[in-house]
């Protein structure tokens, strides 16, 4: 079967690509568009390392097909910093040492941004449940949760 021709927006840039029906959005991002910031930890939607937003909605890109995203807006970790300026979450993750190996970090950051966009003042429990779909094996989550809470507090002060 012929490949699908897809046009979409990734981090504000229009992109077009060809993909097989069975290729996931994650495959397209990583292999075709060489945006390897989104990670594949399980390919079953359990680890969240491939988190991106699709028209503003948080999804696991391993559970979305490449041919489904025509005309849609995709935001990945690569689009999070603006020019030289890190997103406040990125900065706080560094200050709080909220990463060790860093493999889960892109997905966690994308998911956390999605949370703060809809809720500027989440409780610790809300942060923990929102990030329950993002596995981290290194940190025990402690510093991740603190970094997200601290970012939310800083953003509220602005």
């Amino acid at each position, binding site marked *: 079967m012929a490949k699908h021709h897809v046009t979409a927006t990734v981090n504000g840039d229009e992109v077009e690509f060809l993909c*097989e029906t069975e290729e996931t959005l994650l495959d397209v991002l990583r292999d075709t568009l060489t945006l*390897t910031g989104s*990670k594949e930890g399980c390919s*079953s939607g359990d680890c969240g390392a491939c988190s991106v937003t699709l028209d503003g909605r948080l999804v696991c890109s391993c559970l979305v097909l490449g041919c489904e995203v025509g005309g849609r807006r995709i935001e990945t970790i690569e689009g999070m910093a603006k020019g030289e300026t890190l997103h406040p979450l990125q900065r706080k993750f560094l200050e709080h*040492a909220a990463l060790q190996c860093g493999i889960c970090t892109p997905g966690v950051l994308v998911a956390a941004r999605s949370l703060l966009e809809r809720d500027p003042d989440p409780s610790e429990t809300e942060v923990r449940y929102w*990030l*329950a779909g993002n596995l981290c*094996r290194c940190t*025990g989550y402690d510093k991740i949760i603190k970094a997200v809470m601290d970012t939310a507090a800083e953003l509220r002060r602005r």
Partner: protein
Amino acid sequence: MPQTNGNGHAVAQTYVGTRTVRPDGVDKVTGRARFGADFSLPGQLVGRVLRSPHAHARIVAIDTSRAEQLPGVKAVVTRDDFPDQSSEFIPAGEMLINYRDVVRNVLAREKVLYEGHPVAAVAATSVAIAKRALKLIDVQYEVLPHVIDVVEAMRPDAPLLHEDLYTAGVEPKPAKPSNVAKRVEISLGDIEAGFAKADVIVEREFTTQPVHQGYIEPHAAVASVSEDGSTEIWCSTQGHFIVRAHCARLLGLDIGKVRVTASEIGGGFGGKTVVYLEPLAVALSKKAKRPVKMVMSREEVFKASGPTSGAHIKVKMGATKDGRFVAGYAELRYQAGAFQGSPVQPGVMCAYAPYDIENVKVIGYDVVSNRPKVAAYRAPGAPISEFAVESVVDELAKKLEIDPVELRLQNAAREGTKAAYGPKFGPIGLVDTLHAVEKTNQYTTPLGEWQGRGVASGFWFNIGGETCASLTVNEDGTVSLMAGTPDIGGLRASLAMVAADELGVPYEKVRPIIGDTGSLGFNFLTGGSRSCFSGAMAIVEAAKEIKADLCARAAKLWDLKADQVEFKDGHVRATGAGADKHTPMSVADFAKVAGKTGGPIGGYGRINAQGAGPSFGTHLVDLEVDPETGRVTILRYTVAQDAGKAIHPSYVEGQYQGGAAQGIGWALNEEYIYGADGKLQNAGFLDYRMPVASDLPMIDAILVEVPNPRHPYGVRGVGETPIVPPMAAIANAIERATGIRFTDLPISPPKVLKALRERGLNHPKNGS
């Protein structure tokens, strides 16, 4: 006064001990950092592995001809592509390896020994073609009876995995082969006499299940072999020098022709200290003459890598009525997986290490069964034996009506204590960690109904080993730092701080990288909690060379004798009479005149690090049991552990918190579940249930610092001890909450509910 650190070592400044931003951080929060699967080469092929569908079978024949003929298939490898290896045990850090077994685990030869055991590998131009090729490989199996459970595997009539395996460590040598590879024993004093002195004796049996390291990044490797045999490998590993050694040995290559670059590594915890894909990728690339990239799926990771042993354990301890431990006995039966080499030896050695007991005897058995070969997992072996001992210590505390922290304090190992496994301890921090948890607000906060508080201590040796690192002073005074142990959680930050303090340059001016195997001398892997400990020592050596060189240059410049110049507080200074005539020169000052004073400036540290200090920790947990569902919720958690000196406190805390979280998973949920067919039933993150953010509370980390006298900065390894205490701390807390002593891990909701039902204790939480 020259500045010194807490350990009497001269330093120029004190970044060490502060919470700097890690130099590799920005790349990791922007998605720029390249992990194993993020690397690609032009013209690369896709490699895939054919794995055994059986738990145990003889391979009658492998026919790859149809796969080879499929257009797009560029190479197929089987056992025939790897020369056989003789049986010989080689020490490798905390474990022993035998290449006869390594080659068989990389690709099965006579038999497949577990579901997922690799049988063949293909390289093709696309994933689809590679997958089709695997289906065209015809393997004829003669299916054999299998054995999964460790106790069953030890029975005389159990299916035999290796016809030539005779139990080592027993006299006389057994007449028949068995699945028991080895018997080990340590003893101290007279165990019978010890029990005769005891007023109270507790004897219990325990089981633990295999648990996987659970790194989020699956194994990944790219290999490229050129026509002259030059081999390049990029892979996610805890030790690229070890990958080089293994690949060279398995494929008959000169070590000097193999260059391995470690990618950023997405977690390892011991599981990436061995090779799985790398030799296959090299063999495929050698045949195809093109680069080959291989990445495991999560299912492959679960079925064919890691995990650590499950075990069956007997513990018997005796104490006098005033709370003195007088005898400790244990029998440990550890699953090794398909090939011998479980961590039963360290399990035996660690079992009673936290205590000063005159009479100890621990026996261990290393047992093979039809499971994936175990790999190291954080303090390999120790969490299993110490779970059992620390559970029994808690029972003794209850019987003796002594507070569990007090009982531990009465018996704790201290400086000068002779450990049952051999050495006399130097300065150690176990007592300090016990006092630290006792002083927490948590320890005295009242608990509610169905809530319990548990405590447990833990020990790990830590290691040093072969380490090389270099420092280069660049023309503008910045410093390039190269280390050879992959950085999994802050190593580059820590070593950059040490280099800055040694040389008196700003931390931000030190740029650390992890060099490939061609750039430095041999480095043992990141494991054994050694990388920061040994790396810092190598950096101190490298800096020493630079300082001596700069002093010699200054002596020439200033026309002074060598002993009239010294490096102090970040500057080369003249000493004695007339010293003020010469303006002290910093490293950056020398960088500007390097060409005129002797050429490029650099130092090289090349050491076999000795003097690793053991690290002890104590964990305190408050939890609640839901009597309706059997679910255990962790309410509060505190880790107190001796770091010696925390170079970067945040990343030391991170080790404590992460180890505790893994231990909580081990205690409450994680396990390998097999069907009667010998196949793994939960090879995915949905069914292999690791802790998620909503499962855990904040984990308080208390940094106890009893400096290691044998390290210039006082450092002890910290990465492994944190996974040792959680299982017992949680079992002890559940016992206090319910009155039920759970001895089988994981203490999962169905198990708790069943136990509550048997005692008529289960009911809706607020109902009747």
